[in-house]
């Protein structure tokens, strides 16, 4: 019915898209391996790995957070099927990030790590963001979804907090040139802003309104 539904890929196509996204998400990881073997991870390879894995965790998190705004703005829904995979890839890179920090950077020196976390807000914020991703990763399967039902949704709203903490963690890393973290902050603000806007609109539309929000109609139709 809608012109958008024409663009909806078939099940087979979605499978292919998933495979492609999966492989694409592996590229940063494989690249690190490749550069590592070439001894081409810059003069400070540990920092390189920390930065790279942190960057990709944040980037993929932003991609994950794009899916709902796309639905709200265009009515497309099929892309929501990529959400779990992207979310788990974010967790994968976050795990690599924290592993490189604990292992390569601090050689499992827990005393120093504890000091670093407690003394430096930048590290504390990043650490908090990571801790919060763990329950989300654990409950990302269908069984948990069924078990937790409405609470699952509430729990997974933590992702917004994680994203904010992640951007702050990045912001506090840079000494003076804030352009890149600023870009992330803006993207996140837009992504969250769209959600808030539609949420407010749909609340208003519960009142005797003749027109339900565009997106909702489309979602029902697909």
């Amino acid at each position, binding site marked *: 019915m809608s012109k958008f539904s024409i663009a909806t890929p078939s099940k087979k196509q979605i499978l292919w898209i998933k495979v492609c996204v999966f492989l694409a998400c592996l590229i940063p990881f494989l690249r690190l391996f490749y550069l590592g073997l070439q001894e081409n991870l810059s*003069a*400070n390879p540990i*920092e390189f*790995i920390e930065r790279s894995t942190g960057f990709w965790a944040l980037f993929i998190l932003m991609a994950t957070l794009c899916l709902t705004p796309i639905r709200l703005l265009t009515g497309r829904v099929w892309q929501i099927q990529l959400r779990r995979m992207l979310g788990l890839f974010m967790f994968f890179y976050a795990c690599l990030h924290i592993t490189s920090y604990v292992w*390569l*950077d601090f050689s499992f020196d827990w005393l*120093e790590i504890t000091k670093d976390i407690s003394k*430096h807000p930048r590290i504390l914020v990043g650490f908090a963001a990571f801790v919060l991703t763990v329950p989300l990763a654990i409950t990302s399967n269908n069984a948990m979804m069924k078990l937790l039902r409405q609470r699952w949704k509430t729990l997974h709203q933590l992702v917004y907090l994680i994203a904010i903490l992640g951007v702050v963690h990045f912001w506090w890393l840079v*000494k003076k040139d804030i352009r890149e973290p600023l870009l992330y902050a803006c993207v996140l603000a837009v992504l969250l802003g769209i959600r808030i806007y539609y949420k407010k609109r749909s609340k208003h539309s519960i009142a005797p309104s003749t027109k339900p929000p565009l997106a909702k109609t489309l979602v029902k139709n697909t």
Partner: protein
Amino acid sequence: MIIQTKSDIIPSEITPKEVFNNRRDFIQQAGLGLIAGATGLISQSLNAATLTAAESTGKLAVRSNGSTIIKPYGPHQKIVGYAKTSYGAGEKLSAYDDITTYNNYYEFGTDKSEPAINSKLFKPQPWTVSIEGEVKKNKTISIEDIYKLAPLEERIYRMRCVEGWSMVIPWIGLPLAQLIKWAEPNANAKYVEFISLADTQQMPGQNIQVLDWPYREGLRMDEAMNPLSIMAVGLYGEQLPNQNGAPMRLVTPWKYGFKGAKAIVKIRFTEKMPLTSWMKAGPSEYGFYANVNPQVDHPRWTQASEKRIGAGLFGGRIKTQMFNGYTEQVGQMYAGLDLHKNF
């Protein structure tokens, strides 16, 4: 005029054997040394000629190690005839590629890989440095004349960055004290301010106001006169690469790396403590002294330990030493000073 004199390299003295063998630069230099030795007589007479020429201009300090010759600027241009010193004996040098591709030099970009790329068109010659402020009289000096102020020496120094990494760099330079003596500060001079070049044409990073350009750094007079403080004009036996601060930069190894102002065009003597670029940018994070101090933590980075560049992925961290291990040389200057407050 190019004169090659005997170089004082005794490789076994300073450079670890494996490093030495790996470095083409050193082998080439050793070769030059041999040639120079064989033609000692010729070079001696040429040496004498330079001395007279330079003495007549009145700008030459006493030379204990023969003449140091610096050719016009060019990539990988060798410095011939500098003296070796015992500084840094036993330290494993950081690789030339690491030293020259991992730079904090925001005038050429805020990413550490950018200066090596963005500084390619930078022109370190001709270059003059102006001396002003609390001095007998304002004057200027060319970089060529600065080379002649004192015999150039190699100083192998540890460099500790405030970000928690460190290197070992074989600088070539002259004691800052020699330059200051020549500058003739008056009795009011309590501090020295170093001002880097401001030129958006040559330094593309200055198009972005990440710092208030030009870059400014400063030292207390006694710090500047400390024998450890040098004006570096070269590294690894060669003229200073652009990305490392050509043609002349400050090196104070007991302080965090950002104290080392690069591409210096102005030296100003002041009565009051100068406001440095980083103090202005983040007063709670960067102090005037910026002495390496494992006990005083930075809001972002742990200062108790550091990563040595070149240690590899599993090299771990090493403990950061008070004053970066130079307490013996500099500790007395800070007796009675609260280093937690004066960070």
